[in-house]
């Protein structure tokens, strides 16, 4: 199956791309994507504790199973608004 993976903020910067298509085996979970990214960018493992993931605009966990056409995103700690 094919999914779209989006990268924001520090992830965008470190991977040097904002999104990509990934072909994954049936039964793949978000962990499958994280494992694949770790091969390219070993330091990403340090971010996993604080980073969240989403599938189709809803927060998800590494165990969430994926389906054809899903939109997955890596969500670094959010810091919107202002410093008050």
């Amino acid at each position, binding site marked *: 199956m094919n999914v779209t993976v*989006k990268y*924001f*903020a*520090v992830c*965008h*910067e470190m991977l040097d791309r904002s999104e990509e298509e990934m072909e994954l085996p049936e039964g793949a979970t978000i962990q499958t994507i994280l494992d694949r990214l770790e091969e390219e960018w070993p330091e990403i493992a340090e971010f996993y504790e*604080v980073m969240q993931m*989403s599938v189709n*605009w*809803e*927060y998800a966990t590494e165990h969430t199973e994926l389906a054809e056409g899903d939109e997955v*995103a890596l*969500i*670094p*700690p*959010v*810091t*919107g*608004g*202002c*410093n*008050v």
Partner: protein
Amino acid sequence: MFKITTEVITGEEVREAVEGPDAGAVVLFFGTVRNNTDGRSVKCLEYEAYPPMAEKKMAEIAQEISEKWGLDRVAMLHRVGKLEIGEVSVAVAVASPHRKDGFEACKYAMDRLKQIVPIWKREVWAEGEAEWVKPDAVFFDAPKPHKTDSQID
């Protein structure tokens, strides 16, 4: 109105979105770009968002406010891109029959925005470097449910 925008925020957008004849108060909040962080000079801020998810999460916050306070007119608008010192990065408006609920709900909206809405801020320092802001630990660790005090007119 729950929106990510690249346009300048005036506040009229969110005020108009919540106004109505049964409102006795409209609470408006603006977040603005400050010229320093802990004393270090900031040149400008750059905001990035995941717009469809951000707008969905803003709508969920409004739903939470509806459940907690019974207020159904909430608007949230957040700007992305490069913002100069003093510019408005976020505007929240809440209309309510009485001011107390409006103030509480508006504060709640901002607290929740900083917890769950996928928006990121990068500080560009006056001396030239730039870095993604790390979250305030209090917001990152403790999304506690909010309870209203007893109603006061």
